[in-house]
């Protein structure tokens, strides 16, 4: 259940490293209770954006606010009392055991024993071994327990499921659903659209440091369509109106035509019926992953 109170706000935020703009003019708001997925390819600027939210990095220009307060490295710890954070490549103190690390966290913030026990039961992390001896997945379990430990108002996650096995990924997604039911705000970056679509209300797509799409998950679901591949001996055959990602090739007196169609199915049916010298046709569901890819890599797919 989301309300309009923004807990995360980025206004015209830019982050430059030398001459390179890692994040360019990003404006984004996340309301209390929203679960927002932050998706993009490697190097899109997701981690840099999250690093500014957490006060690890200064914005070169623009405002970064959490709970209405401007975030700066010097005061970021104030908002961290209300935030849980985990990253897929998070470097936990290797010399400590999982239990010792979680004890350090419990000393830094208030943690109820019941909450601690529940998380340990859910994620089953290996607490007795030194963190540096654990596998990536087991380290990640400890990072996730740490993120949820204080039952924070806002959970910020940077590719949280990398390294987790499918069972643990599902446990994590169930945890996010649980947070959503309890009105928590979640902002999570991911490479996996399916993962984001399963739990997020909204998906923000980043490419080359800019936000290129900011859509409700329901809208994204409607972006799916039909992948149509046709083989015909009639060379002048044209795709139907509104076809996307059209590919055509004429070889050995045969035209191979493929496209994505997101319009009225009746229209597609009429177009198929009108094809001359039809040799072969294949119509399949257009993968949402592909649909999403097309949003941020139009030059690669068109």
């Amino acid at each position, binding site marked *: 259940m989301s309300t309009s109170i923004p807990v995360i706000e980025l206004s015209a935020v830019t982050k430059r490293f030398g001459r390179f703009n890692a994040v360019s003019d990003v404006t984004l708001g996340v309301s209390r209770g929203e679960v927002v997925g932050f998706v993009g390819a490697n190097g899109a600027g997701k981690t840099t954006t999250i690093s500014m939210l957490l006060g*690890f990095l*200064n914005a070169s220009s623009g405002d970064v606010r959490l709970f209405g307060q401007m975030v700066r490295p010097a005061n970021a*710890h104030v908002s961290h009392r209300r935030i849980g954070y985990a990253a897929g490549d*998070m*470097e936990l103190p290797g*010399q*400590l055991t999982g239990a010792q690390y979680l004890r350090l966290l419990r000393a830094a*913030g208030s943690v109820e024993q019941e909450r601690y026990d529940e998380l340990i039961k859910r994620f089953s992390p290996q607490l007795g071994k030194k963190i540096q001896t654990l596998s990536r997945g087991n380290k990640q379990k400890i990072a996730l327990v740490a993120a949820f430990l204080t039952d924070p108002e806002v959970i910020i996650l940077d590719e949280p499921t990398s390294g987790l096995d499918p069972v643990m990924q599902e446990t994590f997604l169930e945890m996010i659903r649980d947070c959503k039911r309890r009105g928590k705000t979640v902002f999570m970056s991911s490479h996996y659209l399916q993962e984001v679509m399963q739990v997020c209300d909204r998906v923000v797509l980043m490419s080359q440091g800019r936000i290129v799409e900011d859509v409700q998950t329901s809208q994204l679901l409607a972006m799916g369509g039909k992948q149509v591949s046709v083989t015909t001996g009639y060379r002048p055959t044209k795709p139907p109106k509104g076809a996307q990602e059209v590919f055509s090739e004429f070889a050995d007196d045969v035209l191979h035509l493929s496209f994505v169609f997101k319009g009225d199915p009746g229209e597609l049916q009429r177009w198929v019926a009108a094809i001359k010298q039809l040799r072969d046709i294949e119509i399949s569901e257009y993968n949402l992953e592909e649909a999403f890819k097309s949003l941020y890599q139009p030059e690669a797919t068109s």
Partner: protein
Amino acid sequence: MMRSVFAKTLYDKRSFMLGWGIGLAALGALMVSFYPAMHQDGTIDALVANMPEAFKGLIGNLEDLRSFDTYLASQLFDIRLTLIVGIMAIVLGLSLSVADEEKGELRTLLSLPLSRSRVVRQKWLGMVTVLLVTLLGLAAGIYGVMPFIDGASIEPQQMLRLFAMTALMMVACGTIPFAVGIATGKRALATGTAVLAIIGSFILSTFGQAVDWLTDYERLSLLHYFPAVEIVKGSIDLVDVAVLGGLTVLLLAVAFVRFRQRDVA
């Protein structure tokens, strides 16, 4: 036990403390046990008469070998310990600053509700504690062997002065790489500055007595403010305390200010 960054630092560095503590204990014990062989009066008189002034900086003034307190101050504290402790302080200062940042552990710490000032403060206090514990190892080594060595005795006040100034110098040496590392996050800069300051000081002080044109620059050496033989003979010069203490405070202040503002990779 693991309730603060300070406690975590001590826990992380427990092997370091043990290893360097044992090493310094061994050094102290060995240097005390060498004393009878070094202070045979007749030999020293002949050596003193023939030794060029230039060598004094390298091997110490042989006059100092006549009594145990000055022998210990010149041969252990002045010549050997400063270099060894300097290297130890560089290693420790770098590992608690840039190494933690390079590994990504600093970022993880900063994701907790801990202010940057608190993290720096507790890490620095951890560093100081580690250095002091290793210094206790040295004391254990010296006092462990002293009762068994003929003529090896030193007043507690003398020892206290030596250890107090050694501790101050160790902390200043450790603070250089730590503060530069914390302020910039740059390993090369932190290492370079520390090596220049600490190893440079050692070279400047040891060769300063032999090379004429270096004499004027000897005041730039950190070791100029740690005259071990003078400390054991008389009292602590407050100027030395002010310089070493002031340098430490200044570096820490810069580190605090810069770290509160800068990006953490």
